[in-house]
């Protein structure tokens, strides 16, 4: 009896050691790892964030799952030293985790005209595969990119230009911190973790992004201190708000400026100067503009660019 128990334990240890895993990347934000109950149905156990790295066993099965009507294909994975099951089309193996440092367009093939009518956002965590020179433009290199698509509820592999991403671990960590910071509501907390991201060995572009986020938190800041420039081209613009409300004019650019007037939605004005730095207000990152009356050229004040349109098609006939 004792002998068979030892044998069983040894078998379990050995089978685990013999089942080889390969590194994988889980690509769905807020997706689950599952365990199988006694009745064979999968039960959700651990919620993962986009870009979580785990180990993937060469074992899969179709199974019913709690909350779902039809069976899905699950693959066995190891995460934080424990075994789970993950829905197969949520993860990929054999690729490198990377963070997008810019908004990038995606392509069906490595042909620069075969672009899809969508893009991946800066800060997204994706899996990067092989590089390939475009067969029609040898000066242009593409790279395979796999991401989780909410349109198909699964991963999709396409191409992007070989630019606008980083697979350096500190850059990835910095973007994870940025993402966490955006979930926080206490400004001091946000500032603290963003400043910790600046201590990482990040690339200059990523450092600049983090610094911008920190600057955005200081909403009382006079943006003139960050530099102002003359407006290039025709500065004619129109006040355009979502709900037809008025916008404030301030004596300096930034929410710390005193309100010195208001402009009705649809008012046409001229911008002569613009701040060098943007500010995020109501989720919109835009510059501030120094505005003048379209007819009299009288000084009006500074207004946030998120509620101004420079698009001709918005102008009245």
């Amino acid at each position, binding site marked *: 009896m004792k002998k068979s128990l030892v044998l069983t334990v040894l078998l379990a240890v050995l089978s685990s050691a013999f*089942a080889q895993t390969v590194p994988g990347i889980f690509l769905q934000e807020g997706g689950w790892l599952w365990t199988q109950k006694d009745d064979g149905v999968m039960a959700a156990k651990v919620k993962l964030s986009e870009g979580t790295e785990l180990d993937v066993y060469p074992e899969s099965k179709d199974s019913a799952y709690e909350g779902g009507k039809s069976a899905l294909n699950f693959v066995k994975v190891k995460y934080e030293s424990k075994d789970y099951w993950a829905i197969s089309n949520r993860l990929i193996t054999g690729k490198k985790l990377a963070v997008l440092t810019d908004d990038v367009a995606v392509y069906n093939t490595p042909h620069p005209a075969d672009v899809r009518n969508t893009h991946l956002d800066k800060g997204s965590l994706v899996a990067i595969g*092989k590089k390939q020179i475009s067969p029609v433009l040898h000066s242009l290199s593409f790279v395979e990119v796999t991401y989780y698509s909410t349109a198909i509820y699964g991963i999709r592999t396409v191409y992007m230009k070989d630019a606008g991403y980083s697979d350096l671990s500190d850059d990835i960590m910095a973007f994870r911190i940025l993402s966490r910071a955006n979930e926080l509501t206490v400004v001091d907390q946000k500032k603290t973790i963003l400043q910790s991201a600046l201590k990482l060995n990040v690339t200059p572009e990523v450092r600049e992004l983090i610094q911008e986020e920190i600057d955005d938190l200081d909403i009382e800041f006079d943006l003139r201190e960050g530099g102002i420039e003359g407006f290039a081209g025709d500065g004619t613009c129109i006040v355009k708000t979502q709900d037809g409300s008025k916008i404030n004019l301030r004596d300096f650019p930034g929410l710390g400026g005193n309100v010195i007037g208001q402009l009705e939605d649809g008012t046409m004005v001229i911008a002569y100067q613009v701040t060098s730095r943007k500010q995020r207000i109501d989720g919109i990152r835009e510059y501030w503009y120094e505005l003048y009356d379209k007819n009299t050229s009288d000084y009006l004040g500074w207004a946030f660019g998120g509620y101004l349109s420079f698009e001709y098609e918005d102008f009245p006939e």
Partner: protein
Amino acid sequence: MKRILVCITAAAVMLSGCSKSNEQPVAQTAPVQASVSTGSTAKAPAPVVKKGTIPSVMIAGGYWTLLSEGENAGKMKWVDYAVPGTVVYAFTPSNASSETPYEVMKGVVRMTDGQKRDFVHITSEDKDYWAQDYSIGVNCVPGLVTGQKSYLYKKPNPADISDKLLPAGTIIGVSEEAVDDSNPFASQYRKVYAYVENKLIEGLYLSTGDFSTTQSDLLGMQLYTKLTEKNKEGKYLISDEVARRELIATANSLNLSSFISEKISSVMYEEGGR
């Protein structure tokens, strides 16, 4: 003890074998090197003509796949649009002859509308597809109509001019078939394939002065077409700002002839004003 060890080893081998017989279907590729996006480091692919295929050009339409399972088995399912001017390869059948030089399946039902159509078997980017016969120029290289008044000819002879014109900017398939050496004009005309205003143009010739096979001009036109294509409601098919920005950036990196660069500039001007 020895018996236990043998037993354990055998069981471990069996377990290992079991897991392999149930290979997981997670997408896999070879591992890649770590890097920051630095631009081109991959090797330029050499053009390879696959054995048993004929280089061909997509002039319209897109790619289809032949369903082999389920209630729609034997029908063609739409996959995606092709960029006109894309080089693909038509399969040659094992019993290829001058009459059937490439593999065609006639009267296949389209899943989309139940209509029967003829399809050419092709491969593109190592994937197996079918293309409707009107959408492909077999044994062709891609070309671009550059002449402002490009008349088509019934035969490679100036006397055989037709009343049909190909608009400047049309992407065409230029036939690679051998020219008739006995015809003194043969080298001045090439057989072309085009799809204009929902009509296939085939078996007609174009003066070599009226088209270009320059890669950059062709690519410039493909980018311009992508930037300007609209749907039935008059909205751009590619409306995503990032996608449009990248199309323009690629076009700007090309050494284009004035014919194409003016077209691209007009789009850029429009984008700037929007």
